[in-house]
């Protein structure tokens, strides 16, 4: 996947997240402060603006711009978390002209490490990291990018679903304790949505 295709994919991702605002907000109302979808919408609308404005040289530019836009326009935990994720993921792609399965897995991993470093959370804490970790495990570096995207998206969805069974240790759901059980983590839903939208943009491409 080259720079132009990456841009197309991320424009589709942005549309998908913006469209999912109500669902993400409701998820946050259940165990947080009810603003997750609103913040993500603000951030990904900025992503669309930023990406539409110019033609990227490399895939890394797309991810970095995406990360910067989210970081500077979203705010809240999600702004820092997803902004950090995409910026680090972009950095991990370096000068590469295209994203292949190996590069894809590398960016997910670098993104995860950066988020863990930033927020101090780990897998099992009922955050987007749970969706991300499953995605990383599922993505095979040897296969084709579409196949890796397919497995990663499915893994992220599983990971997000699995957060229902977790008690939050970070974010505003923290003090919910037992009562968070049964509800999925909003950020994990967004993480899964991002990878699903990326996969779908390929399928339709």
């Amino acid at each position, binding site marked *: 996947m080259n720079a132009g295709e990456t841009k197309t994919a991320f424009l589709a991702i942005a549309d998908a997240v913006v469209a999912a605002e109500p669902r993400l907000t409701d998820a946050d*109302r259940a165990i947080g402060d*009810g603003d997750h979808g609103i913040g993500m919408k603000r951030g990904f609308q900025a992503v669309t603006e930023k990406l539409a404005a110019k033609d990227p040289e490399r895939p890394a530019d797309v991810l970095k711009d995406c990360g910067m836009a989210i970081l500077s326009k979203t*705010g*809240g935990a999600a702004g820092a978390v997803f902004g950090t994720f995409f910026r680090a993921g972009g950095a991990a792609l370096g000068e590469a002209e295209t994203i292949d399965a190996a590069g894809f897995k590398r960016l997910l991993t670098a993104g995860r490490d950066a988020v863990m470093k930033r927020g101090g959370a780990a897998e099992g804490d009922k955050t987007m990291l749970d969706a991300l970790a499953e995605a990383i495990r599922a993505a095979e570096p040897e296969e084709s990018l579409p196949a890796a995207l397919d497995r990663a998206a499915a893994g992220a969805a599983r990971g997000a679903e699995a957060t229902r069974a977790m008690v939050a240790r970070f974010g505003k759901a923290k*003090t919910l304790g037992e009562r968070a059980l049964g509800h999925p983590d909003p950020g994990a839903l967004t993480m899964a949505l991002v990878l699903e939208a990326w996969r779908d943009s390929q399928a339709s491409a």
Partner: protein
Amino acid sequence: MFKMKKIINDPAGVVEETLAGLVLAYDGDVTQLPGVNALVRKDIPDGKVALLIGGGSGHEPIFPGFLGRNFADGAACGGVFAAPPPDVILEATKAVHRGRGVLYLYGNYAGDNMNFDIAAEMAAEEGIEVRTVRVWDDVASAPPDQVEERRGIAGDVYMIKIAGAAAATLDSLDAVEAVAVKARANLRSLGVAVRAGSIPETGKPTFELGDDEIEIGMGAHGEAGVRRQKLTPADPLTDQMMEVILGDIELASGDEVALLFNNLGATTFMEMLIVNRRVRQILAERDIAVHKTDMGAFVTSQEMAGFSISLLKLDEELKRYFDMPASCFAMTR
């Protein structure tokens, strides 16, 4: 679900319009940074240790309503209930810096922590020294051995009052930070939620609470608290709350405290005054003196009904900063 009535214009523009109205309400003392959701004092003296506060919007008058002489120098504001992005914090940091460094003072939430930390790293790259004191006064949000996991709620007000006075008096970032850290160690709060508030963009309540239920320890954003129970009369409820607060801080007979009753939005003065009556009975029994009582809507959660009780243990040093005359949109001493 029925949408809460609010007197606003475009729900997506509430933060910008609120800040514009606030700058005007300051009648000249404060200005907004061009194109950025941050307000700063116009008359910050050179060489002053700067105090920067901030957090999500929707909790007015905190944070941007606390700028002024002997209060804060600037406030970085995020979306409704969302911490401000690093760029906004960085811009505000540069605007308030007067060569002696900047103290970041804000509530302890994952979003605020991460965004302010990123901004602090950016500021460092630009050669501005930043220290951070996170407010974690909410005893309901974590056990005493994990205070750094606790949320910051109404205690913000007393922290800003004291740090603001210290930052106006002391000439090193170290010294100001030390005073703020000391105040934090002497501060405890506990809230109770009676009815949910709503976010302008959705008009939906941020949580569900039965017509006959209240929740002790609920956060300023409507995050769930520690105990949900049937509506309880003022006296037994106050006893419950004070037992938690007094069980969390060491107070000896003869100690002096300041009391802050913070209205989360729709609670009446009548209710808080009735609660104060009981609080004072409880403190009197323990021979604890009250130096000053503050009551009002300082840290709100939109039209949420509920209130919190904050208790600040005072010593001579803290009292000096606490009593220092100060003035801002939200409070005058």
